[in-house]
């Protein structure tokens, strides 16, 4: 018999201990002509589903398995109870986390579906702490879950192997005997590894002899950790980094033999034991797991007796429709009937009921909830209250959401008020049972920084040097590190340029690109199952103490399980807060629910069209503000268009320019086919929405909408030229049959092909537009409450709190400094909605205890002076210092001079006062008489603080991250005038192509991808009068990138772009750092309040549809 199957293989998913990508493993095994391949990652099935799919695709049999840690079997009592000389060597920690050093390795392979469920159960019991020791399999658990599983005795860190190496064959024999008893007869093999080390021959020989004596079969493996021999370096680096040691790492590997060897090589190694190689083929024959991918598995939902899920859904949908459409229209009725029929045919009624159940719960508790994504295309979702955009009014197509011709698990993502999301999550666990719900995992992979850090740590560089090496590296793939270092201006002078010292780090970091590091938890994904969830996916404990699946969302989807995205949206919290503040001020009846308003208020559109959208959901970024000034939104469909246009796809396809030019009549709307004119009327002949692709294919080629959706999906994936040609022919033939000239049909297809991959899901944009309008309405009519709510829900949105506050100030809202006698913990609205009082929570380093003490004591009576404050609240000295420096105690008390003490005087008194109070333990209200400490003379006697404006501002920026006293650039007015600097508020009045000079503080620097591939930086700056949008093209960026990264304020010279076609922006020609200082030369320290550092990634993915960038979808506003 020839041939060989590798049965002990670690992929990347043996986190930080596997250097083999699954696709590479499968590809190499297929290339060798191996009939099967196993993947046995440490302690889990993290990569099992993608391995299963890849192997099936490659035509080889996937053998799913895991290498687990099992308690000692050949020993009575504890390992630690043995005399030191009899103890076996401890397995290293790499890949095994907390289970290391507590047990021995054992390889398990799944034979069938029962074995898969048993392995999932065993792993779950281990990780969830339901065994005696955490993450260790007990022998009784192993025996209980061994049906359908084949066991191999493990590597040299298995108990038998370790005992043989330690010269304790008797213990090895005992261990083998006990372990074999845990499995069905014939299902336990003695695993032989010849790793080409000097110990190998006696190791293999002894184990083989023991197996013979015990009547156990033997099997040969190679403990594969990398595909190619040359990748052994990565394995060493990863395992060293995982074990937090330097190279050679915890294993101290003697050689590089853990690669995926061909059958001939393995047969040569085991030439004396051919039966060990034959056994791999036998085992592969016996392992025939069918995961049944493609079968959909819905959770069970209870329905009243005599009802079915479908009947319940129908009743709820009709009832909802009546509420949504008054009066009911024939179009709505027909649409609902069509969708219900499709859902019945596809059997998705249970899914909709599950989603409805969750949304109903949220609504019943007053928790804001809105659906997003393609679910907005469904009138059922609209009728059930899951989504809020009318699919008929906005021409949203059900087939884009659920295609009857393609049965696929529906995916409805719901945004909940982020502050109350945990209530919803708790309900889901209650409703479906703890055993049926788990959080979906994400896999954290290495980017450039983590790759550099991993390599540098393994090579033994000091933590300080590691920090220096990874600092200021841009957001990029590690595989591009050399290119980034060579071409990115911000990397000029980066230490990694030192080839002699750091060359190996760069080389290794590039190879580590994309390597999974560890499992994370999805921001909002939950898997809900009918059977206990561990029948399908192993569970483990995440950082927050919740059970997380070992599979990510793609794996869950592939397994046919229901995944719900329960996302937290901070904008919902902000809207709720703003409403509460507004209603508290003007009365509950005076402020309507913004989601119930008709989106037709001209004042709101006027504000949006002016680009005055700081804080407005999805419309606030610099790109969106620029777009708004060009688009001039007039109605709700314009908001949908704006949200859709400023997305990676439409941006890359450069759809904005034709859209704007046609909208303003600069160029005519031309379409190749008259039917397209009607379909694309909203977007001026540009195929902007994915739904429009369906409509065009339907109108021109007569495709049904379901067929058209298949065409769209086919076009959005990488297709071979032949496949695309087949699609084209089919489309054109259909169109010609319907009387369209061939040349026209071909042109229509060309346009669809060009835009299908870039279009945006209109339903998703419409769902977001509802929230955008609500937030814009609040900003328009309740600016103080809205800004206050945004600030109370930070971090959120595009801008720093400093800019949000400055924007409020520009809207006539006064900003009041924090004060212990007036501020709440959070921001609050004062003066009848004309002022915002900064909350104390933003004081750097303040604790919840102190915050509580301040508000609690102040409720009794106001603080009289510093001593009174210290005695009653007992803050830490740093907290008190920060509060004094930021002015929160200004004006309290009286000194001998008959005025309140200055900040310097209070700071001088503070240590002595604090010590006296601590010493006296006095809680009475006795007045403490402390001689004021020696403080320097007041810089500004007119102000109660005694501090100059520049000093106050520096303290505010440093401690609060805000500029309350004034904008920093207001201090430098004379210098700015001297330099001939134009202010942001003046730009709109200047001529297009004017040469101007501006100064601004950095707010954001981004480099989104462009179609040309050139790197363009979009720099958002802020001066005292508003925001400045600066475009830095590649040539200027090359010259000034390091200036952008290293500074916080810049002087920019360039050409003003001010025309309806391109909007308002400054094209930079020169950028230099600007030091903000007062007129008297006192510098203003901008740190903490103004960002600096690397130029960030583009932020256009916020709210992208689920198939674009779901994991990052709520990073922006969530």
């Amino acid at each position, binding site marked *: 018999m020839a041939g060989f199957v590798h049965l002990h293989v670690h992929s990347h998913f043996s986190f930080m201990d596997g250097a083999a990508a699954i696709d590479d493993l499968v590809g190499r095994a297929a290339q060798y002509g191996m009939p099967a391949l196993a993947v046995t990652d440490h302690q889990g099935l993290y990569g099992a589903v993608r391995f299963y799919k890849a192997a099936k695709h490659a035509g080889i049999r996937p053998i799913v398995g895991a290498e687990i840690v099992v308690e000692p079997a050949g020993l009575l009592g504890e390992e630690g109870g043995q005399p030191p000389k009899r103890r076996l060597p401890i397995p290293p920690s790499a890949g095994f986390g907390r289970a290391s050093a507590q047990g021995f390795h054992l390889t398990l392979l799944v034979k069938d579906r029962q074995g898969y469920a048993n392995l999932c159960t065993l792993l779950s019991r281990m990780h969830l702490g339901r065994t005696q020791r955490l993450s260790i399999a007990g022998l009784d658990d192993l025996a209980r879950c061994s049906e359908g599983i084949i066991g191999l005795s493990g590597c040299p860190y298995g108990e038998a192997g370790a005992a043989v190496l330690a010269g304790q064959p008797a213990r090895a024999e005992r261990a083998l005997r006990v372990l074999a008893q845990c499995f069905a007869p014939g299902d336990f093999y003695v695993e032989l590894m010849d790793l080409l080390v000097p110990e190998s021959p006696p190791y293999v020989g002894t184990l083989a002899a023991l197996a013979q004596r015990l009547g156990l079969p033997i099997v040969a493996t190679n403990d594969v950790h990398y595909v190619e021999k040359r990748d052994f370096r990565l394995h060493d680096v990863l395992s060293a980094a995982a074990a937090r040691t330097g*190279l050679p790492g915890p294993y101290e590997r003697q*050689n590089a033999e853990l690669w995926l060897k061909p059958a001939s090589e393995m047969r040569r190694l085991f030439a004396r034991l051919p039966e060990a190689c034959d056994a791999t083929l036998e085992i592969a024959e016996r392992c025939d797991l069918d995961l049944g991918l493609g079968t959909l598995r819905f959770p069970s939902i209870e329905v009243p007796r005599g009802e079915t899920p479908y009947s319940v859904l129908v009743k709820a949908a009709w009832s909802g429709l009546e509420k949504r459409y008054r009066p009911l229209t024939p179009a709505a009725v027909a649409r609902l009937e069509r969708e219900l029929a499709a859902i019945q045919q596809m059997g998705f009624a249970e899914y909709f009921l599950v989603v409805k159940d969750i949304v109903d719960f949220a609504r019943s508790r007053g928790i804001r909830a809105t659906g997003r994504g393609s679910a907005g295309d469904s009138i059922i979702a609209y009728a059930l209250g899951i989504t809020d955009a009318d699919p008929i009014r906005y021409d949203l197509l059900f087939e884009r959401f659920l295609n009857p011709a393609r049965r696929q698990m529906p995916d409805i993502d719901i945004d909940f008020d982020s502050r109350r999301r945990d209530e919803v999550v708790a309900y889901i666990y209650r409703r479906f049972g703890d055993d049926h719900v788990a959080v979906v995992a994400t896999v954290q992979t290495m980017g450039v920084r983590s790759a550099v850090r991993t390599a540098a740590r393994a090579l033994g560089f000091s933590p300080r040097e590691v920090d220096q090496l990874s600092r200021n590296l841009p957001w990029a793939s590690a595989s591009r590190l050399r290119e980034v270092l060579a071409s990115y201006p911000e990397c000029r002078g980066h230490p990694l340029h030192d080839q002699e010292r750091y060359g190996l780090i760069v080389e290794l970091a590039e190879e580590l690109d994309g390597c999974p590091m560890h499992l994370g938890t999805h921001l909002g994904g939950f898997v809900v199952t009918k059977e206990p969830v561990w029948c399908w996916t192993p569970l483990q404990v995440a950082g927050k103490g919740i059970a997380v699946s070992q599979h990510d969302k793609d794996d869950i989807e592939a397994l046919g399980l229901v995944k719900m995205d329960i996302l937290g949206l901070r904008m919902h919290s902000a809207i709720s807060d703003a409403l509460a503040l507004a209603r508290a001020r003007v009365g509950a009846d005076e402020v309507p629910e913004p989601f119930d308003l008709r989106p037709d208020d001209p004042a709101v559109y006027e504000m949006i069209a002016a680009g005055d959208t700081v804080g407005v959901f999805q419309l606030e970024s610099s790109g969106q503000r620029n777009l708004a000034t060009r688009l001039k939104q007039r109605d709700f469909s314009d908001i949908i268009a704006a949200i859709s246009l400023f997305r990676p796809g439409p941006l890359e396809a450069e759809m904005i320019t034709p859209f704007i030019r046609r909208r303003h009549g600069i160029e005519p709307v031309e379409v190749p086919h008259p039917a397209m004119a009607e379909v694309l009327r909203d977007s001026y002949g540009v195929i902007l929405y994915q739904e429009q692709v369906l409509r065009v294919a339907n109108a021109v080629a007569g495709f049904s909408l379901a067929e058209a959706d298949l065409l769209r999906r086919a076009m959005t994936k990488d297709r071979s030229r032949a496949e695309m040609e087949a699609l084209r022919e089919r489309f054109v033939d259909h169109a010609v049959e319907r009387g369209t000239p061939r040349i026209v049909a071909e042109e229509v297809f060309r346009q669809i092909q060009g835009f299908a991959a870039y279009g945006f899901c209109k339903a998703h944009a419409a769902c977001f537009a509802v929230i955008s309008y609500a937030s814009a309405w609040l900003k328009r009519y309740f600016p103080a409450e809205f800004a206050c709510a945004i600030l109370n829900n930070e971090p959120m949105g595009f801008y720093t709190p400093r800019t949000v506050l400055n924007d409020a100030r520009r809207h006539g809202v006064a900003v009041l400094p924090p004060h212990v006698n007036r501020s709440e913990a959070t921001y609050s609205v004062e003066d009848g909605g004309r002022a915002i009082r900064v909350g104390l929570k933003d004081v750097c380093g303040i604790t919840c205890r102190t915050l509580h003490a301040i508000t609690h004591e102040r409720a009794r009576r106001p603080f009289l002076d510093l001593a009174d404050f210290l005695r009653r609240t007992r803050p830490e000295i740093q907290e008190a210092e920060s509060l004094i420096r930021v002015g929160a105690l200004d004006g309290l008390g009286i000194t001998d001079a008959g005025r309140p003490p200055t900040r310097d005087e209070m700071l001088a008194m503070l240590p002595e006062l604090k010590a006296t109070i601590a010493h006296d333990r006095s809680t009475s209200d006795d007045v403490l008489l402390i001689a004021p400490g020696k403080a320097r003379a007041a810089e500004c006697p007119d102000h109660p603080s005694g501090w100059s404006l520049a000093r106050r501002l520096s303290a505010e920026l440093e401690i609060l991250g805000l500029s309350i006293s004034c904008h920093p650039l207001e201090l430098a007015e004379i210098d700015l005038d001297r330099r001939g600097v134009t202010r942001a508020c003046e730009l709109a009045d200047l001529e297009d192509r004017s040469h101007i000079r501006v100064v601004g503080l950095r707010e954001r620097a981004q480099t989104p991808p462009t179609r040309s591939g050139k790197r363009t930086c979009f720099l958002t700056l802020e001066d005292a009068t508003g925001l400045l949008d600066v475009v830095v093209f590649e040539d200027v960026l090359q010259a000034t990138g390091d200036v952008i990264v290293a500074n916080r304020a810049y002087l920019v010279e360039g050409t003003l772009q001010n025309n309806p076609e391109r909007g308002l922006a400054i094209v930079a020609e020169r950028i230099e750092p600007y030091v903000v200082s007062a007129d008297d030369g006192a510098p203003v320290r901008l740190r903490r309040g103004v960002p600096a550092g690397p130029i960030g990634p583009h932020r256009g993915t916020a709210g992208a549809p689920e198939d674009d960038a779901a994991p990052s979808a709520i990073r922006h506003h969530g």
Partner: protein
Amino acid sequence: MGRYRAIRQYRPSERPGQPLDLFSGKATRSDMVEELLKSPWIIRGSQAVRGALGAGKRREEPVDVVWDGAKRAPVAFERNGRRYRVEALVQTWSVERAWWDPRTRTSRRCFRVFARGGLYDLAFDLTEDRWLLIGIVD
């Protein structure tokens, strides 16, 4: 092979105390020794001292080796002007150490061979592209 020559067998039918050779000739002796060397149960005296490679005499001297590409094993080597024909390949192993440090990096493919009645460790050094005799074990 001096020590093995001393292995004698007692045959009661013969004259008492008369020693006899265990092996009839060199050919039969080699097979047996080779088998014994590969046996996991046999621990040689040198191995009992320290380390898996045994004590023996560790050294690093360049040698000329005749390589058999088909067998992927050395067939002979020359040392001090004497040619040693490899009678048996006892063990192979590989060494890959300190790859991150060019000064101390070791990358070798090692062969323990049985030749002229002794055990010799030969290594092909991949970094220097040459053969070394790295040990005379027994």
